[in-house]
Structure formats: C-alpha cells, structure tokens
C-alpha cells in the first residue's frame, strides 16, 4: 500500500484515493475520440496521473509517478 503525497493533507494511504491513471486530453474532437477513450501511453518512467482524494480533501490531484519504481516523483 503506497503513501500518496497529497499536497493538502500530507502523505496518506492509497486506500483513501481513487486513481484514474493517465489524464485523458480535453476537449475531445471527432478525430481524437478513439485515442481519448482507449489510447493510453503507459510509459515506462514518470508520467502524470490523476488521483482523487476521495476520503480526504476530495481534490483531484495531478501527481507524477514513476511506473518503473512505483514511486511518486518528489
């Protein structure tokens, strides 16, 4: 269970959060629809993810996390 660095509440257990993963781009155009719905880069290394502090401040956070080390970038 990871500790998620919430900028509002401090480090909190992962279970308090909802992770949405890579942030899909907005707005959606006719051309970008398929990529928007199904395409994820899933890069090895640091990518910015969306986390929602559901059982805390209820804020949506953009947090950089390294998929190779499973750690949040400082």
């Amino acid at each position, binding site marked *: *269970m*990871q*500790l998620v660095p919430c900028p509002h509440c401090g*480090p909190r257990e992962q279970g308090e959060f*909802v992770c*949405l993963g890579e*942030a*899909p781009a*907005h*707005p*959606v*155009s*006719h051309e970008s*629809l398929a990529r*928007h*719905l199904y395409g994820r880069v899933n890069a090895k290394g640091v990518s910015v993810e*969306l986390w*929602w502090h*559901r059982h805390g401040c*209820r*804020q*949506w956070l953009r947090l950089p996390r390294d998929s190779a*080390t*499973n*750690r949040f970038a400082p």
Partner: protein
Amino acid sequence: MSGYRLESVAQTDRVVVTFDGRPLAARRGESLAATLLANGVAIAGRSFKYHRPRGIAGYGWCEPNILVQTAQGTFPAALLPVADGLQARSVNCWPSARFDVASLLGAFGALMPAGFYYKTFRGPRGRLWPLFEPAIRALAGLGTLPKTEKPLASLKRFAHCDVLVIGGGPAGIAAAEAASNNPAARVWLIEALGISVTAAALRNRPNVRVLHDTIATGRYDGGLVVALERPCTGNLETRLWKIRARSIVIATGAFERPFVFDGNDRPGVMLLTAVAAYASRDKVACGRRVVAVVNNGAAYAEIAVLSAAGVTVAAIVDLRAKIELEHRNFAARNGIALYPRHGVVAAFGVPLRKIRIAPLDSPANTVELDCDTLAMAGGLTPAVHLHSHAGGKLRFDEMTAAFVPDGLHDNCWSAGACNGRYEQEAAEADGRYAGRAASAAAGFAASPGSRPEAPAPPACELLARWETGDGTGKAFVDVAADVTADDIRLAVHEGYDSVELMKRYTTAGMAPDQGRFGNMNAIDVLARARDIAPAAAGTTTYRPPFAPLPFGAIADFGGALLKPSRTTALTAWHEAENAVMYEAGANWRRPGYYPRADENLEAATRRECRAVRNAAGIYDSSPLGKFEIVGRDAGAFLDFVYCTRLSDLKPGLGRYGLQLHEDGRLFDDGIVFRLAPDRFFVTTTTGNAEACVQRFTYARQILRPDLDVHVLPTTEQWADLVLCGPRARDVLKAAEAELPADFGFMSIADGRIAGHDVRVARAGFTGEVSFEIFAPASAAPDLWRRLLEAGKTYGLTPVGSEANHVLRIEKGYVSVGHDCDGIADPDDLGLRFAAHIDKTDFIGKQAVLRNRADPDGRPERVGLLARDRNFVLPEGAAILKTDAAATRGYVTASCWSDTLGRSLAMGLLEDGRKHIGGDVAISLPGGIAHATVVAPVFFDPKGERQRG
C-alpha cells in the same frame, strides 16, 4: 531417530499434549516440533505429493516438513507453541502418519515426473482432468479448514513508528540500540521466536517497543510491514500488525542449506543449525547418534554447541579436502571420526538408520555409517525475502555462494546475516550502522558515517557443492513441495530452463515454506544442468507472505463494522413495521415491501401497487442522490455534465436530464431543478450517488476549471418522502400543507407540511400525481408519521421498492443499470427527447455523434408482451428472432401488473423499434416463450394522470 530431553522439565512447566491421539509430555511454551523430537516421534507427517514419511528437519520458520492440524486450523509444528491440552494431528495422511495408504503413490514415483498431472490429465489429449480432479484434489493439500464459523480469536492492529527493526538477533538488537539512542525516536523491534534474547540495554528504553512471538510476513511500498503475532498467553490466537515505519532495518538472519542425495528427506535427516538449536534452546537431543555433513568451517561452531550440550556426535563428513587445524583438533579431542573430502551418497531407513558416504573423487569406495540423525550444514543463505518483497534488488555473492541485498531500497537497510555478515561481531557492527542510518533517515540522528567494510574472507572457506548423491534414487531439492533434482533437470530438458519457468513447472519453492529449504539448491541444480553460473541463473521473485498467514488472521469477521450499512431517518420505522429491507446504492437499507400477516412478496407488492394506482402510497426514497450546484456558471456546468440542455431552465421548474459516459453510453438520469438563477438542485439515481460525486468534482476541477461553480453533495442531509396516487392531494390537505396555488407538474417550491419546513417537487417515478417531499433528515420521522395519520382515511399505504419497480415498468420508465447495457445510448433507450446533442459540448458528445452516424443494428428498448399473459418472462432471458436461433437482445425488466391484469416486460432488441408489432421468441431454460414487441409504455401513455 530417538530424541530425548537433555534436561528434565521443571514441574511447573510440565504440560500434556496429544498428537495423533497419543499423549506426549511437553514443556509449556516450547514448539510442538521440540515436543515431538523430545518424545521420539520420528514420523510426524507425510509429504505433499508422494506421501513419503517425514519428520522434523528444521527449526522455527526453517522447518519445511511438518504441518499439523488443530481445531483452529493448520499450523507449522515448529511455529506452534505448546499449551496444556493442545490436540494436534498429522496432515496429508490416512489413517496415520506412520501408516499412510496413499504412500503407495511413492512406489510409482518414477511415473510421476515434473508436470505429471498436466501431461497426463490436461495435455492436448487430456480430457481426463474433470474425471480425476476430485480424487487428485482429495489426495493433495495439507490439512483441512476448521469447521467453526470463526476459527480464530484474532485482532488487527495498526501502528506507526520511526524505525522498525525486524529480527531480534545480534544485528537486530545492535540496530535497535543504535536507532533508539535519540529518545525522541520511536523504535519497534519484531522478534520471531518465543525465546527472547533481547538485550538488557533495550529493556529500560521507553522509546523502544518489542513485539515477541511476531513474524514479519511481508514488506510493502512506503515502509509498510505486515506481521503476525501469536501471543503464547491469553485467549487470543493471532494479532495481525500493519506497521508503517519511516525507515526499516531488516535483520532476519540466514538459514542453512541442505545437501542433495538419495533419501535426504528421510525422518532423521535434519539441518545442523536445527539440531543445535533444539539442543541449546529447548534442551532436546534429536538423536542418540548424530553424524554431521558439512562443506564449510563455520559449521564446526554449531557442532561444538551440540557436543557441549551433551549430544553424541559420532562422525563429521566434510566435503573439503583441507580442513582447518583447529577443527581437526576439535574432532580428535572429542573422539569424533572425521571424513575429509567425503560426501553423503544415500540415506537409509525409516526412521534414519544409516548413511552411505563416499570420497568425492572415488565414488566407488563407499563407507556406511550408523546414525539416527544426520545434521546437514551446506552454508548459509541470507533471508532476503523482506528486502525483495517491495522490489529490492539482489546480487550473487561468490564468496558465500548466495544472493545478498544489492543496495538500499526504500529507506530499508538489511543488516547482519541477511546481509551476508554471519560472524557475530561483523553482524553487530553492521546492525549498529544500519540502526544509525535508519534513525538518520527518519530524522533523528546526524549522518551515520560510512558502512563498516565487509569482513575479510573467513579463514574457513566454503566448498560450493551440494549435490553429493550418485544420481540414483530420490534426491530432493524441495522437500516441502516434493521436487527432486531429476525433476529440475527434466524441466530444463523440456525447455522450462529459466528459473521462473522451472519454478512454475516443478512447483519448487511454492510450498508453505516458500523455498527456504530448497530454493538455493534448485538454482544450483538448474545452473549446472544449463552449465551456467548460479548468478546467471538468477532467483525467482520473492513475494509475501514469508511465513504462512492463517486466513483467520487476515479475514475480517467484523461484519457490519467492516461494511457498515447506511440507514435513512426512517429505517427504524420500516423495521418496526416488519418491512423486508433491501440493500440499495452504497449500502443503504431501504424497504423492499411491507408484508402483512400471511402475505408473500407477490401479494404485498400487488396490494402496494393497487394503493398507489387507486388511493395513495408513500415511499422512503431518501437514498436518492442529491446535489446542490451553485455559482454564476452553474447552468453552463450542468450543460457540460449532462447531455440535456439545462441552462435555459426557469427557476422553480425541473427537467429530466441524462448524463453520458465518455463513450456515449447512458451513465445516469434524474431530475434537475433550478431554485434560483445561480442555484440548481440535482437528483441522481441511488446507485450512482457516490459516482456522481466523483464525476461532478472531476468535471469541475479537471475538465472545466474555467467555470465558477461549486458542487455540494446533500444526499444524507435531505430525507425524501414520495407521496403519490390519485388521493395524494387530499392527504396533503389533511396534513395542512402550505404549497403554492399553481403547483404544476415538474415544479419545485419551499413550503410547510404538518408544521415542518420542506422543499417539495411535483415529480415521481410512478406515473401518478406525485410529490417528492424533501425534508431535513431530522424532521423526517415526525413528518412521515403525520402524513400516514393524515392519509388514513384516504387509504395511504407505505410502499417499497418492489412496488416501485412494477409501477415504473407499467409506465415504461428507464431504470439506469436495469435497462442499460454496455452499448445503449439515449437514442437506443428511447430518450431522444432528453438528449440535446446539438449543444456545443458535453461529456460523451463525440461518441454519441459517432453512434448516430450508423444507427442500424443498435439495441433499442422495446416493450414485450408474452403471448401467455399469465407468464412473467425471466429478466435476463435472451430474445431470439423467430426465424433464427441467433440472440438479438434480452429481457431487461419484467413483472406482473395487477393494474393491467397481465405480465409485462421490457427489453433491448436489435433494431427493436422496427419490429414493433412483430413477434419474437424468448429463450427459456425449458424451451421457448413467444412475445409481441410493443412500444415500451403500457399504462397511461399520454401521462395524463401524473399531470392531473
């Protein structure tokens, strides 16, 4: 094997335990393994696959063989503390460990190679598995589950500390001492075995807490360690700890490596450290005549421990040619025969009677030695499991022929033997450094300086050889999983030559001991079969748990505490009225129906439906999702979140609105009311009330941060009492309702009913005149009672969700979740009137446009009338076209309608609206039912009743 006690047990510590029905004298607190050895119980269980007789071979969590069955479950004998009256049975054998019918399997061992079951029963030709599986499953497995509902009295505890030290040996104690020098640092020490060697220095430190009889079973991200405590006293069986530490010192020590030869699993063949530990700690001699086989000089210290304790060591078989002078002298002084450059070829007897040894260079010149215990010392393997669990890397250390931690991982230091520093002084120095470093990392000390150098190569080196058999017979690498050296060679031969594939094919390392006994030898056999270095072969991934965790310790028996129910303000009233309560939405408790005297579900539902259609009904709809959306841009925000246009709504009115998923599917529906130009009152379905919190906050914070709007969930704040039916107005009048004079359909206004301030909306889900009365939750019980009182003369009846379901099907209303699937969009569901897809932008717009570009073949919602009007179609049944067997859709909702005197159903049917008037077949378990496709509105299609 004929173990005995070296010291008699003090009177006060004497207890009696029962093993396989036989009473045994024991010492309170010792492990059951020690009791078995002390009583000369050589055969204590049968092996996993071949049912070979097995005895105790290791100490503590290094013991691979013996699991025992107690009333509480199955436990490793070497980790089960003895208490008076303990009753244990051997496992995996019938009728007893000494005579086991299934051991005949062992005779066919040659016919059961690696992958036997897959090859025989499941291979390309294998259709036999379903036939044989029950018998194979009955033979496999270790022990049975306890029959009682709650097998263990167990607790869970959560803790935080600054430095967590795992292991109470020399390195761990040195680390805890160094880490706790700053009194502000909270230091915890986890100690696995009952015997406490905790240094006196730690006892007087208030900032140090020691957990005894506790084993760390896993390390996870972010400094989380899970540990299992088995208190030896009191009624508690286990306590599961979840400890979050700023930094961690792992000092879990090392375990001994066995040798590989024919019969190395026979009862009496043990690890030298175990034989020594039973002698020195438990004062139990494992046998009367011990022979030791070693490949390193450090093992002589353990042999000395044995001798000093009074155990007879008859001979030492040393694989090395050059034996240190001091060790040769030790053997001579104690009259121990020494066989340099010899290895064990085979062991004989059940229990062990003799061994055959041979010079490594001339295998033909065998010698036989009588013994009842063979103590193996093949060098030490660091316990790197906890280091690896969360992702720590390993490297192969040539000097000790073992994998050791490679670098620091996640504020976690390995120290002492688990870091390859086996000698006490080196281990303590390493522990002190790790303790300082961990304390510094947690912010309680200055920089720890540099790590002490690894000690110089020990004078007594290790000969890296473990397989000493002649290649015949059964030479086990993993006794716990019954995997032999030949199995591994066969796996390599058949192409499963990577260590991970070999593990899965042979199951080496997958038994309850998690490869502690055999993993390194498996890697050694694999590497030699492939002619590569062990470092190149690598090791498998270590995963938690390190030691077996009883399900009872992990499972939560808290029930209502684990998953609390949510009650509305009226749940107590419903329960007092004997309502059958259903779960709705996020664990809400809500009435399903209110059965009277001898009514069943159907009868109660019919009565409640009749009340709503002919008189009046009242329904507790409090779990309905409710939000207040406030701000200058509230209208624009709702236009974006809903595919229905809501910004042009006039204050005081509501509109039915739809929300879509990004891919165009219907996500949720509900009525949105405008209270003021900058204030909306939004209702969502009960099931999606929580999901809408996420969706609205996501839309506001991430998608449209440009909008000036606030989202306030108010589901729990408002109770929602729905009063509906042709006499609803009369009931309100009798309850002295003060509402606006021109209170038309879809209006919302504040008012007073029975003396309570309420917010009332003219909306509902039944097709009758309907008032949704929103009241503060605190006022709801009184208001509910006053309304029922006022409605008595009008036949007002409380109704549940079953009646609601029927009434909404009669009206053809969509219930999200019930009538939608993974494809249906608003058009498919017949909700085009509420989908304003010409709006600039809203969530799901592009996907809906794409759907609509190809409108053929979509699942469309239709009504279904069974030809047999008394037959209620089963929900979920497939709809077939009459001319073909292919599925064209399915029944989504179905009920008996008393109002219409027949059964009704709705379904999603491919191009359904084109088939209205036609016939379809419905697939049933016993055949086919015929139905006519109709428009999905059965009652009052013009909606005159609800507007009236």
